């Protein structure tokens, strides 16, 4: 299907007869499109007609497992947190946005008052409301409300689809910053899913070299090769992580990668990434997996390989928008499937089914 709603002026301000629909997860394995009331923006909020929403691995996980990380699904909730749309109504006190403004949505709403928020690390706010993390509703509806403060205007040359890519792009930017890799330094990315591939794209755009990306699926690796990965490595899950790590280290010249970003959440992949990182390097876990994992502690401790976790992102949207608007980061091709809102359930099926070759699936309105 063709890219919809490129035209910045196409939006519908809800009237008396306008219906709102959302993609609701009742509980594990029970996903439906339901009718919802049109939400009215409160003070400081705006109403948005959501034009594009990407589906994330966490949405699929919530659907299939009824939980993600340390958050179980406790009440029916909307999914989705990778959205862009257009402002259709403004609440009291909002003077930064007006009806018709095209915006990207930052899904996390922190308290802005605690120590973490006041020191700029609002992603670690203990009371943050992140849309679609249980028990909070996500953004997969035709109309939502959101605090104006956590919306960012997107320029006319950034499509809604690109606007919806800003969220995973934010994860990639955060990951690269958190692990500390810079131009001229080597990087190992484990996992060539949407996150791993966007990390690859950002790494290429910032002079990081050489870059290796690993995956179990050869088709993903071919894709990564076309995107300019210097090395690709197909992981055989039946082999020992120690042996895989050794082979990866050899490809990097014997000592391994200076930095590694683990983008699968799979325990054996994390162990491999750690062991394939050079002494004094850094391994950052991006993927979300088991809550407790067996790690080779002496290996990383005695080689002073630092282990860092990553939780979402902070202060990334303005840069992500600039990167997208510059045209230097071409990641539209990662959107492999698009579905109209009425076919949202098919969109979820497509995302969950590896055989479709889906990378990023978006639901358009």
């Amino acid at each position, binding site marked *: 299907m063709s890219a919809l709603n490129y035209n910045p002026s196409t939006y519908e301000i809800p009237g008396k007869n306008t219906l709102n629909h959302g993609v609701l997860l009742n509980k594990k394995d029970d996903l439906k499109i339901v009718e919802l009331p049109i939400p009215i923006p409160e003070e400081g909020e705006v109403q948005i007609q959501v034009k594009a929403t990407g589906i994330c691995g966490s949405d699929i996980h919530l659907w299939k497992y009824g939980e993600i990380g340390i958050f179980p699904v406790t009440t029916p909730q909307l999914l989705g947190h990778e959205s862009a749309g257009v402002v259709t109504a403004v609440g009291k006190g909002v003077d930064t946005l007006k009806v018709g403004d095209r915006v990207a949505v930052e899904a996390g709403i922190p308290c802005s008052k605690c120590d973490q928020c006041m020191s700029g690390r609002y992603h670690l706010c203990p009371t943050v409301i992140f849309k679609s993390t249980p028990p909070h509703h996500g953004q997969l509806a035709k109309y939502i409300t959101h605090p104006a403060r956590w919306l960012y205007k997107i320029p006319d040359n950034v499509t809604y689809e690109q606007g919806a890519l800003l969220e995973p792009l934010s994860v990639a930017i955060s990951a690269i910053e958190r692990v500390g890799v810079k131009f001229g330094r080597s990087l190992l990315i484990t996992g060539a899913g949407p996150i791993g591939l966007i990390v690859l794209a950002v790494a290429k755009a910032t002079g990081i070299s050489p870059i290796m990306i690993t995956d179990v699926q050869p088709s993903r690796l071919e894709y990564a090769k076309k995107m300019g990965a210097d090395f690709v490595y197909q992981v055989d899950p039946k082999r020992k992580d120690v042996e895989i790590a050794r082979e990866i280290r050899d490809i990097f010249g014997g000592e391994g990668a200076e930095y590694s970003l683990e983008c699968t959440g799979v325990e054996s992949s994390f162990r491999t990434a750690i062991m394939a990182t050079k002494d*004094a390097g850094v391994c950052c876990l991006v993927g979300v997996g088991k809550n*407790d994992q067996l790690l080779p502690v002496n290996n990383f401790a005695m080689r002073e390989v630092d282990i860092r*976790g990553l939780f979402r992102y902070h202060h990334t949207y303005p840069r992500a928008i600039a990167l997208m608007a510059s045209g230097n980061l071409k990641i539209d091709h990662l959107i492999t499937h698009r579905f109209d809102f009425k076919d949202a359930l098919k969109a979820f099926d497509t995302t969950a089914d590896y055989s479709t070759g889906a990378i990023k699936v978006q639901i358009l309105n």
Partner: protein
Amino acid sequence: MSLNKQENLSVILNKPLDIVLENRPIPTLGKGDVLVNVKATGICGSDVHYWQHGAIGSFKVEKPMVLGHESAGIIAAVGEGVKNVKVGDRVTLEPGAGCRMCDYCKTGRYNLCPDMVFAATPPYDGTLCNYYRHPADFCYKLPENVSIEEGALIEPLSVGIHAARRGNIQSGHRVFIFGAGPVGLLCAAAAKAAGAGHVTIADLVPSRLAFAKTYYTDSQVLLERSTPGEPNIEFSRRMAQAILKTEEPADVVIDCSGAETCVQMSILLAKNGGCVILVGMGASVQSIPISEVSSREVDIRGIFRYSNTYPTAVRMISSGIVNVKPLITHSYPLKDAVKAFQHVKEGRDGAIKVQIIG
């Protein structure tokens, strides 16, 4: 000063559980070397471990090896080209010399040099002898007001300094330390020197905590052992919750035990965005609460010995920022080395740092 060429009594580990005292030849000096008349050497848990088990991780004792690496002494002779010390100078020895040429050495991470020569790590001989050859650039002069015995504590103090730096401890930080042995105590000292506002130390042994109360810590926590059959992670969560009733989450948690439960608790006790520094060496594979590492961005950093700490440590002791004298609890002459090792192994009579004085 003339050297008695017959007398270089050395404490040698022949094989596990077999320490002998033997005369070894006095080493000849190459360019850049000095000969140190070793006067004081502290005994480390690693020395005891080699004695008892013959190996630490992949380092195995394959031939007789002189023990000891926490030493200070007096320069007895200098080799060609040595400019930083002269005969008669009192010095502390940094036991590990890097190659000075690889990337790690050039970027200051020389503790990770693949060609590191470290005293008393197989196959290299240690410092528990009368006369020890060492590169001059790894010997540091002791000021008048720093004794040789204090000089011999600079090695473990360096571990504390390196841990504090790796943890990036800053003014006002809350620091939590597992293990109130000499290393944990010196981590507390370094944390305070770095400006920590509150240092909590935890241990299983009440007498250790009683001493720790007098030494650079603000609160002490008595740990329990897990109940038989209780999975480590359940014990750790239970114990961490109990600790958090009286202690606030920490900016930096330093584990000096190596125990899996303490590593797990360290992560649970760290603030969001805090870090855990692993000093203690334990099992090679451990179960880690990754959900905490990810969702609260708690970093985990190990240390391997130390680098660039000796000049700092000398100044810290000389200026009185840290007093290491209270940690020296027992001394033995070189000829009673085996008794000294036995004492450390038994940990009796409130032993903290046992030194061998030559």
